[in-house]
């Protein structure tokens, strides 16, 4: 059936709540309102206030109590309302959630999911359009994933909930209303941490995730008109990285560009570039390049189109790569 990405997440969460009574959702406004993006719409009504919990307005509290619930055998799914509001929970995420399994020598599992709608492009005010994924991907003990399309949203959220490790789950908020085919009967097409070649090509590898996958696909379309065949990879997992899929692609194409909205300096593209260069040193015909947000705070919305990587900037970078 055809679903929006938002609705696919909603269905995936419903599935998770149905399959395991230890699954609970918690966050600000996730109950009667169904979340400000309606990702939990209807779940409070159907599963009740004990399973879909409206919390006080305190993010450290959301993650901290989720940790305690996990100690007690629950599988909490936290919603952080917007990317820019995850920082008050940062200590609980990086110093606690990520480390408790190791601290307790594996005796205490932390099957906690932290959902974060992220990225820009919706014309919002300050702190509502950020891309903080690198802060989490750098943290040992966490798994970090990001869905880009409805089918992945549906399956990946269920895989994240089923995972026995903490998963930071990024949702591309400006793609919530994108539609796509979802086949609930089929079973998850890929493991949680696999990248996917979403468009095969031979001349250059474009890596994106979340909101930039579509930007990459558009660039591949545009390039095709000029006779360039770009391969597009939807990274899906930001930590651990599916190095093999990217490596195999770059080994064939000899060129790599990573596209993300987060600032470039120490962003995901830096890790991907470094790692792939180590592994594909002799096949690379150009340095790994990146098209990213600028190294500035996310600007007021009237400037976000300048800030966000778009078709033209990707094409510009493709030219640059091909010119080596």
């Amino acid at each position, binding site marked *: 059936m055809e679903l929006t990405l938002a609705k696919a997440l909603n269905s995936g969460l419903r599935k998770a709540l149905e399959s395991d009574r230890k699954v609970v959702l918690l966050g600000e*406004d996730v109950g009667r309102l169904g979340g*400000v993006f309606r990702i939990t719409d209807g779940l409070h009504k159907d599963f009740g206030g004990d399973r879909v919990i409206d919390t*006080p*307005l305190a993010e450290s509290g959301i993650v901290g109590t989720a940790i305690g619930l996990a100690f007690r055998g629950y599988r909490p799914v936290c919603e952080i309302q917007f990317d820019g509001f995850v920082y008050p929970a940062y200590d609980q995420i990086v110093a606690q959630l990520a480390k408790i399994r190791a601290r307790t020598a594996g005796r205490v599992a932390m099957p906690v999911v932290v959902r974060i709608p992220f990225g820009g492009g*919706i014309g919002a005010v300050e702190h509502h359009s950020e891309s903080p994924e690198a802060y989490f991907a750098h943290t040992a003990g966490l798994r970090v994933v990001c869905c880009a399309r409805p089918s992945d949203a549906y399956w990946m959220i269920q895989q994240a909930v089923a995972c026995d490790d903490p998963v930071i789950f990024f949702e591309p908020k400006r793609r*919530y209303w994108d539609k796509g085919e979802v086949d609930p009967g089929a079973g998850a097409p890929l493991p949680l941490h696999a990248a996917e070649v979403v468009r095969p090509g031979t001349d250059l590898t474009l890596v994106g995730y979340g909101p930039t996958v579509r930007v990459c696909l558009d660039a591949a379309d545009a390039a095709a008109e000029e006779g360039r065949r770009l391969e597009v990879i939807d990274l899906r997992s930001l930590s651990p990285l599916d190095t093999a899929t990217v490596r195999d692609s770059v080994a064939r194409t000899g060129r790599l560009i990573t596209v993300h909205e987060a600032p470039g300096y120490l962003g995901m593209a830096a890790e991907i570039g470094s790692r792939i260069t180590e592994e594909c040193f002799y096949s690379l015909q150009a340095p790994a390049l990146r098209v990213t947000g600028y190294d*500035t705070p996310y600007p007021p919305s009237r400037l976000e189109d300048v800030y966000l990587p778009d078709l033209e900037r990707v094409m510009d970078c493709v030219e640059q790569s091909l010119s080596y």
Partner: protein
Amino acid sequence: MLTTHFPTRDPDPVQLLDPSGHRVTHPDYALDLSPEEYRALYRDLVRIRRVDAEATTLQRQGELGLWASLLGQEAAQIGAGRALRPQDFVFSSYREHGIAWCRGVPPIDLLGFWRGTAHGSWDPYRAGMANYQVVVGGHALHGVGYGMGLRLDGADGAVLVCFGDGATSQGDVHEAFTYAAVFDAPVVFYCQNNHWAISEPLTRQTRVPLYRRAFGYGFPGIRVDGNDVLATLAVTDAALEHARSGSGPVLIEAVTYRMAPHTTSDDATRYRSPDEVAEWAARDPIARLRACLEREALADDAFFADVAAEAERLAVQLRTECRSLPDPRPTALFDHVYAGPHPLIDTERAQLTAFLDQFTDRSTDRFTDRFTDRFTDRPEGPGSWS
């Protein structure tokens, strides 16, 4: 000086004007206003409500990305705002248009933030008020630090820190209480309890009235009727004076109600009853003051007509100004990120400039089209973005 002792029971919120507009007295808070002062308060209330309504309309018409209405909270804000003196400083959330109004911030400077032309459009030092804070509770500690600075300077001012009922749950607000108490910082914490934090009722933040928190830190906590502009003025005035005189912080809980949805993106019918809203509509802060002005013959029909006309002019002007708010240049991205030189910023600015030059002579053109339909272009879908 205000008391810090335990109360034995929760007192009624301080009131100087009852819901039907009768002047009442309170043992602790006197207020002696001239007829002009009464009228000035009324004008403030009406004008800021009109500004708020106009902004809501502008949002609906696509001129603003979002707007957070203060409807229903005018008295809570004008009372507190008019208690401020020039030497004071304010740190607030995103909904304190009435406070900003009292600080002399031109309404158009409020709109830039919501239109997306700037994160902060006014000069905090000129206004004596920091730009809006979006992170709930994030500014409370700034107010305390500013207050510590006032003390170190031996200066006379106080700080007003404004936040909502929801914000009281944030760790930072607790740390602000703690630091303010330990350092005797001249800070008045002004909590507008409007009963909702987006869809969450007060009971999701607390079991008991919020003013009580103060006792746990050893400073005075006062509950005031937030729909009574005389009471909010008198209480805030006393609290600021307490702070300025070196006695440390005070917490005020102004009990009021958010009549509008959380923001223009919100659908409040999903989580609260029309009955509740109607109940609070009956306690409208402007109607209350007007009833008093009429009863006490402090104002005549001409005055009310004049105020209405003035508010209307303000709205027309605001609309015009809003529509002509210029968009920032693309390279404004890089302005003000750092005070000193920064090689990465310089490189990126140069890259962007060169990139834009490919498209056109005038580097803004590439984006002009997109900007024009920025908000109509917005992705479809339900939501309550805050």
